[in-house]
């Protein structure tokens, strides 16, 4: 294994781990829930991404095989992470609206009303229609 490859692997591993840590650190230090929600997407994307690419190269270098598995893990995480974030945000919005939580030091404050006639879906059930998914039909 060439020094350069090794260095690249080490770099990717460290980079990934660093982003993972930073994401979690953000979870600790950011001031309110919505800000903290940015942490995991960080960890997911570049953190795990770098780690996985590092791992891919690592196995190629060590065992001489290209493993595509890491890419697959990336794909799954990229598909699922936004959904988690979206749902958690909804929880936050919902609890904020119902008064279950009070966040005086939230920076962004309460979410603004959307421009149209209807409120956000979390506060108002979407009418049956294409945007509201087939499930309601």
């Amino acid at each position, binding site marked *: 294994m060439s020094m350069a490859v*090794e*260095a690249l*692997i*080490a*770099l990717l*591993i*460290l980079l*990934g*781990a*660093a982003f*993972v*840590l930073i*994401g*979690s*650190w953000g*979870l*600790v230090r950011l001031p309110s*829930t919505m800000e*903290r*929600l940015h*942490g*995991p997407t960080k*960890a*997911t994307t570049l*953190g*795990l991404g770098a*780690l*996985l690419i*590092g*791992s891919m190269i*690592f*196995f190629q270098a*060590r*065992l001489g095989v290209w*493993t595509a*598995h*890491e890419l*697959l*893990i990336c794909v*799954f*995480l990229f598909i*699922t*992470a936004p*959904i*988690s974030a979206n*749902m*958690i*945000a*909804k*929880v*936050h919005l*919902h*609890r904020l609206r119902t008064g*279950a*939580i009070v*966040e005086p030091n939230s920076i962004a404050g309460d979410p603004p009303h959307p421009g149209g006639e209807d409120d956000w879906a*979390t506060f108002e059930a979407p009418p049956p229609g294409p945007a509201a998914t087939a499930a309601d039909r």
Partner: protein
Amino acid sequence: MIGTALHLAFAAVSLALLCNCWRLMRGPALGDRIVALDTMVINAIAIIILIGMIGETNAYFEAALLMAMVGFVSTIAYCKFVLRGDIVE
């Protein structure tokens, strides 16, 4: 070099876990705790990948894959529970 990097990475991810744990216990909002758990799952995947590299084995791939695929299900379920009570309607 890689060995050192792996050890450092382990340390970093472990610290990340500690951070998650702190947020998990601290809250204060339910959302915070769910975020903490969700992040923990992602960090766990990182750990699995690191373990695989240390052991130079592919044996843990399925576990990481599965965690990536179904780990978010409980997060969603928790959220749906808070939002709707009934997670299946």
